[in-house]
């Protein structure tokens, strides 16, 4: 429990630092929000009044505190472009992106772990060469290219779904099809990487003397694998899977565009092009929080798998 509390404290500190960095960066670049809202033709008096009203004359740290408080309570400021609160604008999109990244994550985990375990049992010769080459090939396929092929084959030719016509999450079966193909596109290179990583950790674990001892004492090889090797080999893989969340988010930004899925990624691209900084800032912080959260969950899962980690040791 103490370990979990420590991890969660670290998580909160990281979130504060991450959001502060984002806040400062956008504060530096966005220039004068008052001018952005009123346009360059505004009179100096009107600008000064709006600045005062928006609280832009206060020190940076105070404004950050204010912004963070707003962020936590769901008040993300106003979009320059849509004249709408950012929170309202993003709320439906957050859920879409969340579904997309969770689905990708599940696909990656469910396929790569059995694949890694299976391939670790075979080695050398033709299998090894084919495995390594295949891995490199799958890792080389960019998600948005797979996405284009999938949306052409299953959308345009087979008519399983209509690319670009995302119905919204309430229409579960149709939305699921969109998200499923998008997730597969994101997942393919990550499955290759995760499977390969698990395979190599299992194999280096299997070379250790405790495994030889266990087998020499007459234990079943499968049981040794399940009860001893996997437990140790999974820890780095769980960490790796959490890092994969960052890649899923990155892949999602592009793949949402390919399939026309209205999530945070598409919104981000549009907002960058329009220099709608409050929206960009909010999306960046939300996505970063999501990644940091995944890392913390991974640490907590690892502490369950390997209790030694709770004592502060390195596995």
């Amino acid at each position, binding site marked *: 429990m103490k370990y979990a509390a420590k991890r969660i404290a670290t998580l909160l500190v*990281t979130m504060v*630092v*991450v959001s502060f*960095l*984002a806040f400062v*960066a956008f504060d*530096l*670049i966005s220039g004068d929000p008052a001018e952005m809202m009123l346009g360059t033709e505004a009179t100096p008096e009107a600008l000064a009044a709006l600045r005062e009203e928006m609280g832009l004359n206060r020190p940076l740290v105070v404004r950050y505190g204010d912004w963070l408080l707003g962020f936590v309570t769901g008040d993300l400021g106003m979009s320059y472009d849509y004249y709408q609160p950012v929170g309202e604008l993003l709320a439906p999109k957050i859920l879409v992106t969340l579904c997309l990244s969770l689905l990708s994550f599940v696909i990656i985990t469910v396929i790569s772990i059995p694949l890694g375990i299976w391939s670790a049992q075979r*080695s*050398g*010769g033709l*299998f*090894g*060469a084919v*495995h*390594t*080459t295949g891995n*490199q*090939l799958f*890792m*080389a*396929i*960019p998600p*948005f*290219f797979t996405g*284009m*092929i999938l949306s*052409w084959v299953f959308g*345009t030719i087979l008519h399983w779904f209509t690319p670009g016509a995302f119905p919204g999450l309430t229409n579960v079966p149709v939305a699921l099809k969109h998200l499923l193909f998008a997730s597969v596109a994101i997942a393919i290179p990550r499955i290759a990487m995760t499977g390969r990583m698990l395979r190599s950790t299992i194999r280096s674990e299997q070379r250790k003397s405790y495994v030889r001892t266990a087998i020499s004492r007459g234990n079943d090889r499968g049981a040794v694998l399940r009860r001893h090797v996997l437990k140790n080999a999974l820890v780095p893989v769980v960490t790796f899977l959490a*890092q994969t969340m*960052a*890649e899923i*988010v*990155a892949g999602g*930004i*592009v793949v949402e*565009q*390919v399939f026309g899925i209205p999530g945070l990624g598409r919104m*981000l*691209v549009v907002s*960058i*092009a329009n*220099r709608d*900084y409050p929206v*960009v800032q909010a999306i*960046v912080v939300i*996505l*970063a929080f999501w*990644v*940091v959260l995944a*890392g913390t969950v991974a640490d907590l899962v690892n502490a369950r798998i390997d209790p030694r980690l709770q004592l502060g040791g390195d596995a």
Partner: protein
Amino acid sequence: MKKTSMNGYLAAGLILTGVLVLLIVAGYFWTPYDPNAMSVGPKFAKPSLQYLLGTDNFGRDIFSRVMKGAGTTFAIAVATVVIGAVFGTLLGALTGYFGGLADAVLMRLGDILTAFPSILLAMVIISIMGPGKTVNVVLALGLVFIPSFARVTRTAYAGLRDANYVKSARLMGASSARILWVHILPNIMQVLLPAITIGFNNAVLAEASMSYLGIGVTPPDASMGYMLSEAQGMFGAAPWYALGTGFFMVLLIFGVGLIGESLQRRDGEVD
């Protein structure tokens, strides 16, 4: 036997990458047709000996466009990796070798930066510097790639800080700069070279993604990402455009990946 299979990846990777890079470099000087000229052939011509990858809706030769576009992507990726590797290694060498407060602070900062997916970070920087300029794409990606190189080299430098040969060089009065550059750097190639191949591939992907999204390289410069977004619109009429461009990129990443694979391995490692 093991040795030959390892060299197999290196050979395959070098040959594949070599052929593609040759095409790319040739593309800087010569392409079969003008890559941007319209109506050099019929519209939507299928791939043939005359038009190796067919033509698009304007009758432009796709093979010429791929050569040219891959050139842009390649140049950006190389520049990115150079920026990332040079500054990252410098940072990693100094922090890893000297340690201390700066080391602790920079590494914590690096940890925190990993919360931002690299393409997200690059997009933030692009939005700061203004989208649509090639120089900004290079700078943004280069900056984003510095921490990962710094992390890898920092670990390597920290590990060798107290190696016997480093100690003896220090005793002989070698300057710190000389120790970092002449004594340690050649010994960390084992980790630096694979990091460079991985960085190159990530840079190709990141550039292509950003240009695909319209916030990277913009016309008239063709880049693979921009071409793919163009090709997606005519996937039905000219699938060879998307497939030709996409597979060229896949093969490039695959080839460099194979080289990286062989560099990462220690002698005698079995598949």
